[in-house]
């Protein structure tokens, strides 16, 4: 079995093959970490959140009935933990990631031309969004998840998710224009 599906891996875990869970961790660690960093703006917290998400998922595997995709389920756990972390931290000053701290890899920009200055404006615009809005942007644009799954992860209706995302897009454009 070269590339087993999530459900196949979970079936192995259920049969007592604990090490198979490592495949799940390898598959989702980066993605959950990205979501947690975007929401919390804090890499330390994001690490803890990712760790806690996997442990919770493992401990509650018996309760996962497969009504939704496993990826949606684990993203929802990470999302809830990230939002909780933000709420707890809201009493303390938020340490935002500066432009220099944002790690970049070789992902090519698929849109139109956007120079470094433009990307900087975009990062600052994203930074001004609320934690929930950043989660929506990450799930839709980076994860490219269908709207129905995003709605399930965030815990709102599909229509509400569409409306919120539309407003977020408008806000991002406005923030970018304000800086021009």
């Amino acid at each position, binding site marked *: 079995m070269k590339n087993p599906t999530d459900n196949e891996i979970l079936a192995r875990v259920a049969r007592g093959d*604990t*090490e198979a*869970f*490592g495949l799940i*961790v*390898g598959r989702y*660690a*980066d*993605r*959950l*970490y*990205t979501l947690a*960093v*975007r929401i919390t703006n804090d*890499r330390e917290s*994001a*690490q803890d959140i*990712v*760790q806690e998400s*996997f*442990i919770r998922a*493992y*401990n509650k595997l018996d309760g996962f009935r497969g009504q939704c995709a496993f990826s949606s389920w684990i993203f929802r756990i990470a999302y809830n933990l990230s939002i909780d972390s933000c709420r707890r931290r809201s009493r303390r000053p938020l340490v935002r990631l500066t432009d220099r701290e*944002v*790690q*970049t*890899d070789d*992902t*090519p*920009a*698929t*849109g*139109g031309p*956007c120079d470094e200055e*433009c*990307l900087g404006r*975009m*990062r600052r615009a*994203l930074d001004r969004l609320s934690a929930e809005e950043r989660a929506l*942007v*990450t799930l839709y*644009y*980076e994860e490219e998840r269908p709207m129905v799954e995003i709605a399930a992860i965030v815990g709102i209706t599909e229509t509400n998710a569409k409306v919120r995302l539309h407003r977020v*897009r408008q806000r*991002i*454009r406005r923030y970018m224009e304000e800086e021009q």
Partner: protein
Amino acid sequence: MNKKERELAGWIRAAAPREKAPAGLEVRIMKQVRECEERRRCRRAIGAMAWVCAKTAAAVIVLSCVAIRCADAPAGTDGASFPFGLVGAIFAFGITCCYDEGRQLFREWM
């Protein structure tokens, strides 16, 4: 997605590319998962042991009551020998049936 939308999507992806989880995070998570599994097995083994103990205690209580009644039996009858023989037989049967399972539980527990 229209053109404007695609352009915005591209900019967002370029401005906030996917993060790489720090090295060692996956190892740490798996270590915790193994610990969780270990604890779960321990709990299961303790539960099973407690269940066996409870059943044994119940059986002993019932048989003790029977033995006490038989000890008061009139002379010339079997008295307590029959229930005690029964206890011995049940004990031997239990050991034979549960030896492998008990050994496995004990190994998991330790």
